[in-house]
């Protein structure tokens, strides 16, 4: 277990190195410097800027400097907003996104798991058909469409919920649904098929032969086993919520990190793009690692040594 952890940590560090390298190479292979884009600046100013940001150094040295800074947790200054650093963007935006994401993931689990259980237990009955129809809709409709429909219905037509901002608890409802819609559907489908598979196992027949009620069988013998695949997709689910947040934060005008990232992409704010990418990647990989560790606590069969 400890060895497995360190092996995974090692792989994560290698991946991180490649991510930083790749991001750096991509950002530096874009033709033209960061200050040559739109506004005409005088050569003198451009030179001064280049000097200030060490853009005249040879690329390997720039990369080593950047790597060193990143390891110290310093993502450098923003090129588009003078005086602002990328760290400030992250410090401002991430807590907002993280809160929204955290609420969403709790909502997803609370909604999806019971949905999947209901569908599996009522396999073939109308409850199953209804749940799976809902889930198919959730998987196939993109989040920005769901978000727009929700805004149109609940904000414009019914005037029940705000269409932007997170000022009150009401403001969270629509973004959380739009953000979690896909994951709810995905996890509900997974939960259903996984529970159905478990219910077909021999040990469930054993449990029946013991004289347990169907209720006891599902709760005591099937649920824990069926949850294992759900836990393995928690990592990808977090990644999904994160990319979903780009769109949802944009639509609902939520000042999170996602919308900052998209802005920096459209405005070509290179250091911000690099910084936020590296930050997101680290965060996601750390979450996936945590989920995997949690996974082997649940299943006694797994020994990673």
């Amino acid at each position, binding site marked *: 277990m400890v060895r497995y952890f360190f092996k995974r940590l090692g*792989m*994560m560090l*290698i*991946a991180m190195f*490649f*991510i930083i390298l*790749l*991001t750096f190479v*991509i*950002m530096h*292979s*874009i033709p033209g410097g960061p200050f040559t884009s739109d506004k005409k600046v005088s050569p003198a100013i451009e030179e001064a800027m280049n000097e200030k940001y060490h853009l005249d150094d040879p690329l390997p040295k720039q990369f080593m400097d950047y790597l060193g800074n990143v390891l110290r947790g310093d993502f450098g200054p923003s090129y588009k907003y003078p005086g602002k650093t990328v760290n400030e963007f992250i410090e401002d935006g991430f807590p907002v996104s993280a809160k929204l994401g955290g609420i969403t993931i709790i909502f997803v689990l609370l909604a999806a798991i019971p949905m999947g259980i209901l569908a599996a237990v009522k396999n073939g009955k109308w409850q199953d058909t209804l749940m799976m129809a809902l889930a*198919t809709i959730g*998987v*196939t*409709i*993109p989040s*920005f*469409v769901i978000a*727009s*429909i929700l*805004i*149109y219905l609940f904000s*414009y037509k019914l005037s029940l919920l705000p269409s932007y901002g997170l000022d009150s608890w009401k403001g969270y409802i629509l973004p959380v649904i739009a953000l979690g819609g896909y994951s709810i559907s995905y996890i509900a489908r997974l939960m259903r098929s996984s529970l159905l598979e478990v219910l077909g196992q021999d040990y469930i027949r054993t449990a029946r032969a013991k004289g347990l009620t169907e209720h006891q069988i599902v709760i005591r013998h099937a649920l824990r086993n069926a949850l294992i695949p759900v836990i393995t997709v928690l990592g990808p689910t977090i*990644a999904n919520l*994160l*990319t979903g947040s*780009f*769109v949802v934060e*944009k*639509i609902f005008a939520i000042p999170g990190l996602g919308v900052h990232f*998209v802005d920096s*992409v*459209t405005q*070509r704010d290179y250091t911000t*793009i690099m910084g936020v*990418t590296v930050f*997101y*990647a680290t965060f*996601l*990989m750390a979450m*996936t690692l945590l989920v995997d560790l949690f996974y082997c606590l649940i299943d006694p069969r797994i020994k990673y040594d």
Partner: protein
Amino acid sequence: MENKWGKLKATNEDREKIWKKNRTFAGDVWFRFRHKPTALAGLIIIALLMFFAVFGPNFTDYSYSKQNLDVVNVPPRMRVYETADGEAYLYITQNMKLLEVSKDGHLGSQLEKVREDSGRYMTIFDYKGTEVALYYGQKPYLVADPETLVIYPHTTVWNHSYLLGTDSLGRDILTRLMYGTRVSLVVAFVAVAVNLIIGIAYGGISGYAGGNADQVMMRIVDIISTIPLTLYVILIMVLLGSGLKSIIIALGTVYWVDMARVVRGQVLSLKQQDFVLAARTIGSPTKTILFQHLVPNCMGSILVTATMLIPSAIFMEAFLGFLGIGLRPPLASLGTMCNDATENLRTCPYQLFFPALVIVLIMFAFNFVGDGLRDALDPKLKK
């Protein structure tokens, strides 16, 4: 009846008779596929959408890029006022002009503005010599006779010039939808084809080579799959600039990892089997074994993975389009159309509705076909 105690003639063939009906593999798959209504419906929807995207533009008089600022944001169903002579309707455009609409719903020209009567919140227009007033003192705006102040009778009529209405630059939404569907499908198919080639080659080589080469290649795949790929699609888009080619390259080069894993797993298990040994004993070269024996045998799972990849490519393209880093205007894709529509969502929900509907249809169709194929190819389900 013949002698009931006579010996029963039973041949060995009778005894060994196979009780099940015998079909070819492809016939078997098709049999199971077409007995799934959702899968069949998905296939039909895909065919119809492809027809719509490929041949649709031949049937329309508009281009996807030509703007007509006279007819901005005209909905498919218009609220119109009947003129005094009863021969035409008048439609109030968003920029406060009056548009003549024929009785059968075709849009005509704008009426000429005569004067502004801001004291009475009216703009006076000329319709065949008579003056009509656009009253904007209250919502909804009205059309009335400026002298008698009698409001013209209103009704609603379908828009026959622009069946699905126009967008905020006066472009025909139906035409843009055809081009948008075409772009989305092209992006998806080409990107998936690129993924397929990279994935099959990588996974095939890794699985067939085995040993250390396989170890190294799979560690690389492990590392790539820990990287959040959406971020990389976005980075590549930043590097290449927006445009159709960039999207295809970005999507095509990133999502092959799953495919490589599937192919490798299949090749790894298939190459242990005797028919590969047989091919090797008769001296077939590696290339023949790999591409004539192994790859065709993993076609089933490759097909399913690819079918499932198509909706996610369409999804990603729409996602990029929605974020504004996809196609360059005036080129349309379903995602950019949705993005454009969100700005007028409150007044013109139809602008979002149609492209969103097409996206949803495509997603449904491919998901259904993929599910159907997977079930049809899965021999475990054969009873």
